[in-house]
C-alpha cells in the first residue's frame, strides 16, 4: 500500500490514438433515404410489393406427387416499371444438376462406406415440372428458368401502381425426407404403411422486389432460406378422404370435412384454455388401417402472410386450445401421429400457446388466427402459422429428459419463427441471423418463463465463450451472407442471441432494451427490415450509442478476454504528523529484513559507534519518527487552509485501488468488478464500455472504499462472454478445469437406476 499525497493540478492526456472500435458505423451502413429513415423506421416513401395466390392442389398419396394450379395476382407498389417478374422454384434444388450438390466441398474421407457413396449418388426425380404459364386470357407467357429462379417476361412493363395476374400449372414428386433430406417432404411409416406429408416451398413463389436489392433473386443453394412478399392466399387441397390437414390460415369448410362429433370438439377447443382433442388417437389408428380411396378437399384462406405450407396424413391426432393475445383469441393446435405420444399430447399445444403469448409480450401481438405445431421426425422448420417439429419418444413410449427438452426447445423455436421472419419479414437469403438470431434470443426468454432454470442451449453469455475464444480462422462475423457462414449454428443462432442478451442484461438494461427491441418489432411488423434498420432503431429508441457493440459483435470475430493485470493500493495522506509518522514507523518495522542484517545483530557483539560515543552525530541521533513543533505548526497551517469537509474526507480512512485492465481479446465490453472486503461484504462496480473509447487495449480505474479490499473479480456474474476467467481475479485465482470439477464430485449414477434402487430399498423397509 502506498500513501497518496495530492498534487493540485490536472494532467492532460494528449495521446493521439486512431479511433477504431468506437468509430461510428457510417461507412458500413447504407445511406438513409426516403424508403428507410436514419432513425431505423420505414421512411415516408417506404413501399412493398403484394402477391396474392389462389391455388388448387391435389396430392396423390399413391405416387407421392403434388399437382398444382396457381393464379398469382401481383401488385407493383414500387416507383419502378418492371419489365419482368422473378419467381422462386425452390423444388429445383432437387434437380440432378442443382448447384447445391456441386458446390459441396468433398474429400475421400467423407466416404467411409458404400452407403455414403450411394447416398451421394442417390437419384430422385425431383424439381418442378412447369406445364404452362399463361395470362388470364389463356395466352402462353414467355419464361426462362435459371436453376432455382424463373423469369417471366411481360408483354409490356408493369407500371407503378399496376397489377398483373397470371396462371402457372406445375407438379413435382414429393421427396422422401428421410432419404433425400430437406425442410419438407414425406415420412413413410413402415409398420402401418402410411405417409405423413409436410409440404412447403411447394409452389412457384414471387421473389421480393424492393429498394434494397431490386429483385432478390439470389439462387437457393440450400442454406440461405427465403425472402417473400406478403399477400393473401386461397388454397384448396385435395387429399385422401381420411386425411387430416393442417395448413397456414383458417379452414373454410370444416362443416363438410369433419364429423359432427369432431366439429363439436373443435368448437369446444376454441373456447378452452387447455388442449381439447379433436381427432383422437383411436380415430387416427382406425384411419391408418382402413386407408380411404376417396378424396376430400380442404379449403383455406390466409391474409397478409408471406408463404403457405401444409401437412396432411391419416395418422394425425389433432388437439387445440385458445390463447388470448391482445384481446384476440388465437387457436393453438397440434397435429401428430401416435408415434409422438406421450410427449406430444401432453406438451405441444401448451408450448404453442405459451410461445405466442410470451413472444407477443416482447415483440408484437401475434397477428394470425391460428398457430400450429406438427410433429415431423428429426426436423424443425417454420412457415406462417404452421411449423414442423421433431421430438419423438422411443417405440415403447419412454423418452429421456434430454429428448423432452429437445422437443420443448424446437417447438418454442419454430413457433417463435412466426414473429421472425414471418411477421418481421427479414431477408433470410441474405442474413440468417436476422431471423434465427433474434428468434433464438426470444426463445431463451420464453424458455425461462416456461420453467425456472430451464436448461437453454443458447442465450446466456458464458455459453458462447468456447466458440468465440482462441484461433479465429474457423469463424465468421455475424454480418456474413447466409451461404458463407462458418459455424452456422454458433454464428447465426448462438452469437446474436447472446449479443442481444448482453445488450439487455449489461449494456442497456432491461427497460431500455425491451422498449427499443419492441419498437423495432412494431416498426417492421409485416414489412421487410434490414440489419441497418435494426441497428438504427435500437439506438434511436434508447439514446444509447451502440455502434461500438454492433462493430465488435456483428462485424468482427473478436472475442472478449479482459484481464485484471495490476492492482495498486493507496490510502490518503492526512498530513497529520502524529498519524503519518506513526504509520511510517509501522511500515518500516514491517519491511523485510536481509538475512545478513539479522545474523549481524548477534554475530557482531559491538560496533565502533556503540563503543565510541563520539562517533554518532546529529544524523545518527535524530528520531525520524518523532513529531516536533515544526511538524505540528505545518499541520496547523494545513488545517487552517483546508475545509472541514476535505479534512473529514482525509481522515475517513479511505482505501484507494487503481486497477489496470487489459483487453486481450479485442472486443471492448463494460467492466463489471466485484470487490470483496475484509468483513466479507461485497460491492459491484459497473463501468460502461466507453471507458475504452480512447485507449482500446489498456485502461485503469480508481475505486475508493471505506475499508480494505481482500479480492477483486471481473465479470462475477458471467455476463460478458469473457473467454478466460483465470485472468479476471486479484489476487490471481486459477479456476478449476471441468476435469477437476468432475473429479471432485461424488460418483455418478444413472438416475433411473438410482430410482430403482431407492424403490427397492423402500420396498425392503
Amino acid at each position, binding site marked *: 500500500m502506498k500513501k497518496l499525497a495530492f498534487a493540485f493540478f490536472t494532467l492532460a492526456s494528449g495521446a493521439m490514438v486512431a479511433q477504431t472500435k468506437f468509430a461510428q458505423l457510417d461507412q458500413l451502413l447504407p445511406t438513409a433515404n426516403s424508403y428507410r429513415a436514419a432513425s431505423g423506421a420505414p421512411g415516408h416513401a417506404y413501399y412493398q410489393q403484394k402477391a396474392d395466390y389462389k391455388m388448387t392442389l391435389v396430392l396423390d398419396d399413391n405416387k407421392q406427387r403434388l399437382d398444382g394450379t396457381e393464379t398469382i395476382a401481383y401488385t407493383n407498389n414500387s416507383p419502378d416499371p418492371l419489365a419482368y417478374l422473378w419467381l422462386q422454384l425452390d423444388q429445383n434444388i432437387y434437380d440432378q444438376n442443382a448447384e447445391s450438390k456441386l458446390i459441396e466441398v468433398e*474429400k475421400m474421407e467423407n466416404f*467411409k462406406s458404400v452407403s455414403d457413396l450411394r447416398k451421394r449418388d442417390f437419384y430422385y426425380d425431383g424439381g418442378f415440372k412447369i406445364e404452362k404459364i399463361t395470362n388470364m386470357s389463356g395466352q402462353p407467357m414467355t419464361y426462362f428458368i435459371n436453376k432455382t429462379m424463373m423469369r417471366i417476361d411481360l408483354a409490356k412493363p408493369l407500371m407503378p401502381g399496376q397489377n398483373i395476374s397470371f396462371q402457372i400449372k406445375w407438379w413435382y414428386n414429393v421427396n422422401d425426407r428421410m432419404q433425400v433430406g430437406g425442410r419438407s417432404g414425406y415420412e413413410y411409416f413402415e409398420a402401418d404403411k402410411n405417409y405423413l406429408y409436410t409440404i412447403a416451398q411447394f409452389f412457384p413463389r414471387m421473389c421480393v422486389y424492393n429498394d434494397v436489392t431490386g429483385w432478390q433473386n439470389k439462387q437457393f443453394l440450400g442454406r440461405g432460406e427465403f425472402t417473400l412478399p406478403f399477400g393473401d392466399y386461397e388454397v384448396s387441397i385435395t387429399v385422401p378422404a381420411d386425411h387430416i390437414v393442417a395448413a397456414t390460415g383458417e379452414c373454410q369448410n370444416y362443416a363438410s370435412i369433419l364429423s359432427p362429433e369432431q366439429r363439436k370438439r373443435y368448437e369446444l377447443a376454441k373456447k378452452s384454455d387447455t388442449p381439447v382433442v379433436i381427432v383422437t388417437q383411436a380415430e387416427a389408428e382406425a384411419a391408418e388401417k382402413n386407408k380411404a380411396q376417396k378424396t376430400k378437399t380442404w379449403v383455406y384462406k390466409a391474409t397478409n402472410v408471406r408463404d403457405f405450407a401444409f401437412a396432411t396424413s391419416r395418422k394425425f391426432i389433432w388437439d387445440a386450445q385458445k390463447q388470448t393475445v391482445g384481446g384476440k383469441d388465437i387457436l393453438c393446435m397440434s397435429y401428430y401421429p401416435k408415434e409422438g405420444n406421450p410427449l406430444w399430447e401432453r406438451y405441444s399445444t401448451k408450448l404453442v400457446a405459451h410461445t405466442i403469448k410470451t413472444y407477443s409480450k416482447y415483440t408484437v401481438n401475434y397477428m394470425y388466427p391460428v398457430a400450429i405445431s406438427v410433429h415431423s421426425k428429426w*426436423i424443425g422448420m417454420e412457415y406462417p402459422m404452421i411449423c414442423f417439429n421433431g421430438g419423438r419418444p422411443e417405440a415403447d413410449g419412454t423418452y429421456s429428459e434430454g*429428448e423432452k427438452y429437445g422437443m420443448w426447445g424446437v417447438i418454442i423455436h419454430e413457433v417463435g419463427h412466426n414473429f421472425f421472419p414471418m411477421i418481421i419479414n427479414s431477408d433470410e437469403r441474405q442474413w440468417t441471423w436476422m431471423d434465427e438470431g433474434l428468434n433464438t434470443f426470444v426463445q431463451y426468454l420464453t424458455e425461462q418463463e416456461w420453467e425456472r432454470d430451464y436448461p437453454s442451449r443458447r442465450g446466456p453469455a458464458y455459453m458462447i465463450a468456447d466458440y468465440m475464444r*482462441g484461433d479465429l480462422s*474457423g469463424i465468421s462475423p455475424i454480418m456474413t451472407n447466409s451461404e458463407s457462414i462458418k*459455424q452456422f449454428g454458433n454464428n447465426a443462432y448462438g452469437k446474436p442471441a447472446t449479443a442481444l442478451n448482453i445488450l439487455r442484461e449489461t449494456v442497456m438494461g432491461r427497460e431500455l432494451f425491451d422498449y427499443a427491441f419492441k419498437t423495432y418489432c412494431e416498426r417492421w411488423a409485416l414489412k421487410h427490415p434490414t440489419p441497418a434498420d435494426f441497428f438504427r432503431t435500437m439506438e434511436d429508441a434508447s439514446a444509447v450509442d451502440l455502434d461500438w457493440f454492433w462493430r465488435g459483435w456483428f462485424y468482427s470475430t473478436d472475442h472478449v478476454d479482459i484481464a485484471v493485470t495490476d492492482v495498486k493500493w493507496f490510502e490518503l495522506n492526512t498530513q497529520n504528523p502524529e498519524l503519518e509518522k506513526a504509520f511510517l514507523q509501522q511500515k518500516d518495522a514491517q519491511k523485510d529484513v536481509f538475512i545478513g542484517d539479522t545474523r549481524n545483530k548477534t554475530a557482531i557483539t559491538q560496533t565502533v559507534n556503540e563503543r565510541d560515543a563520539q562517533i554518532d552525530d546529529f544524523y545518527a541521533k535524530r528520531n525520524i519518527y518523532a513529531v516536533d513543533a515544526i511538524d505540528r505548526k505545518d499541520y496547523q497551517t494545513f488545517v487552517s487552509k483546508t475545509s472541514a469537509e476535505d479534512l473529514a474526507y482525509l481522515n475517513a480512512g479511505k482505501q484507494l485501488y487503481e486497477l489496470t485492465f487489459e483487453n486481450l481479446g479485442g472486443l471492448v465490453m463494460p467492466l463489471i468488478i466485484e470487490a470483496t472486503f475484509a468483513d466479507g461484504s461485497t460491492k459491484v462496480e459497473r463501468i460502461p464500455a466507453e471507458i475504452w473509447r480512447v485507449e482500446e487495449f489498456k485502461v485503469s480505474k480508481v475505486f475508493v472504499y471505506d475499508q480494505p479490499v481482500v479480492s477483486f473479480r471481473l465479470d462475477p456474474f458471467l455476463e460478458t462472454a469473457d473467454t478466460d476467467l483465470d485472468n479476471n481475479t486479484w489476487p490471481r485465482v486459477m479456476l478449476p478445469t471441468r476435469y477437476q470439477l468432475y473429479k471432485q464430485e461424488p460418483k*455418478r449414477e444413472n438416475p433411473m437406476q438410482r430410482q430403482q434402487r431407492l424403490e427397492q430399498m423402500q420396498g425392503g423397509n
Partner: protein
Amino acid sequence: MLRTTLSFLMVFAFSVTSFAHEFYFAYAELTYNELQQRFEGTIIFTTHDLERAIEPKGTLIGKFEKLDETSAELKLIEHYINEHFQINYGCALDSNAVDAFCKSQFTLEGIVTQLNGTIECYVSSSAGALYNPVQFKFDALMDRYPNQQNKLTFIYRDQKETLSFLLYDQQKYFTLKP
C-alpha cells in the same frame, strides 16, 4: 496420379441428411498435470452428433443419457475419442534433442450428459514427460459432418492457447515455453 484401391466397410449405416441440428461444434479443455504426469481433460460434444457417429460401429448405443460409469458401451466412446483426439509429443530428450515421440492413449474416466444437449467426456492419458513438438489432432465428427469445427484449449503451466480444427485443418502445434 496415384491410383489407390479403396476397401469399404460394408456398413449400410443409418444416414440422414436432414437431421435437424445446427451445432457442428465440439470443444476440449486439456491440461498437462506435471505432478501426475498425464494429460487431463474434458471433451464436449453435441450428444446426438456423437451418438450418430458411434452408431455405425456396430453396437447399439441408444441414448447416452442412459449410460453410467459402469456401462460397457463407454469403451466405444473411449475408442472413438482415441481415434479422433490425439496428441503426438516429444517424450524423451537426448542432449537437448527430442529423440522419442509418444502418442496419447486416453482413458475415458466418465461422462455426463447435460440437459442442454451436450455430453462431457472426462479423459486422461499418462505422459511421463512432455517436450516440443506437441501436435494435436482433433477431427472428431468431421467425417460425418463436413462443417464440424472443433476447438481445444490447452493449458501448460502459465500457457493457455485455444486451437481451432477444421475438416481441412485437422492438426495443430502447440509450442511449450521453458
